[in-house]
């Protein structure tokens, strides 16, 4: 499993208010050999990451490497965040925005899950930085799509400019049917 220190075992933070869905996503991720932390709200997710809301920029300014992938300098090394969209309080979208606004964590890939197939919602999430949008119930084939995003994080850390060389074509060039909006249903936003 994790031969090369902590880098080959990715750590995924799963956020979902439904206990059943948390159990499911946890099992799906563990089956794929990821380390999993599951929390039931966006605020707990931020807490886990060490984001207290206001002061994260000041706290993290001292750390030169601000990328997130398996960074041992941070309290927690999270390689990917997968979150439900519909949650009481902070939605998955709100969480996405907060992550992308944070200097320390904006490079962590974020994936959104939802039981509703609403193209405008899907579009908005993808435009605002979500890497993928999964329709629930999430399957093993969906979880397999996470790997390229996780690998990209590793290469970003090791070689700052090698993204374009190492990126596997599947993640952006070929949108999977289930996660990308169906174009004939798009509204003009």
């Amino acid at each position, binding site marked *: 499993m994790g031969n090369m220190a902590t880098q080959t075992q990715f750590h995924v933070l799963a956020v979902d208010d439904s206990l059943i869905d948390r159990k499911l996503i946890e099992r799906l991720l563990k089956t794929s050999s990821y380390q999993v932390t599951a929390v039931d709200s966006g605020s707990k997710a931020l807490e886990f990451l060490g984001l207290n809301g206001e002061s994260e920029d000041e706290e993290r300014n001292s750390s030169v490497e601000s990328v997130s992938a398996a960074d041992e300098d941070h309290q927690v090394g999270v390689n990917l965040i997968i979150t439900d969209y519909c949650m009481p309080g902070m939605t998955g979208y709100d969480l996405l925005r907060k992550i992308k606004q944070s200097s320390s964590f904006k490079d962590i890939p974020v994936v959104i899950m939802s039981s509703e197939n609403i193209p405008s919602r899907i579009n908005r999430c993808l435009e605002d930085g979500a890497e993928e949008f999964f329709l629930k119930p999430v399957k*093993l084939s969906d979880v397999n799509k996470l790997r390229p995003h996780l690998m990209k994080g590793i290469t970003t850390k090791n070689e700052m400019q090698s993204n374009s060389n190492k990126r596997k074509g599947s993640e952006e060039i070929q949108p999977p049917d289930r996660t990308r909006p169906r174009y004939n249903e798009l509204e003009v936003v």
Partner: protein
Amino acid sequence: MRRSSHLTKKNPKPLKRVKPTNKKRLREREKTNPFSFLGQLIPLAKTGLPLWMLGLAADRLRADMNRLLSFLFHQGILDEQFLQLQQLQDETSPNFVSEVVNIYFHESEKLLRNLRSLLMDREFSDYNKMGIHLNQFMGSSSSIGAKRIRNVCLAFRAASDQNNRAGCLSALEVLEHEYCFLKNKLHELFQVLFSLIFLLLHYHFIC
């Protein structure tokens, strides 16, 4: 086969000990037996009983299980998501399916009670609140593969969107009925599994 050797001996041993050949055949048989995964849950039966008895009973239980599962799938009560749950179960997580199903039962009953008490309230008007419970129920039903329940939830939601209280009430009744039906069928399914466990343990202890 040396089965009759004990008859020719002066002090015949009681038939408690397993003959080595039977043990080996039992293990081989378990590799092709669909219930061999149970070996991780319970000790394997070290039985001296003739294998054909054990095999017949296991086959019958397997047929029961197939019949039940076919029924549930053909009637659209369950869908492929339920099979996905089975696939996620393995040695590191041997109770995954029953754990998830039990969580589903607890949550569902709570949500159904909430829905009923909301709708039975004479002054009910908070369709939003009801929608939250409903979405939760719909989500968890979909996650375990309870297709029919999820579809009834959709109809319920349509009624709720139109603030149609009567429609909501009748949808709730259908929902309660469907939930009871599913719960009974799943209990039946687990009973078949437990019967097999009982069978194996029974032979383990009396032989």
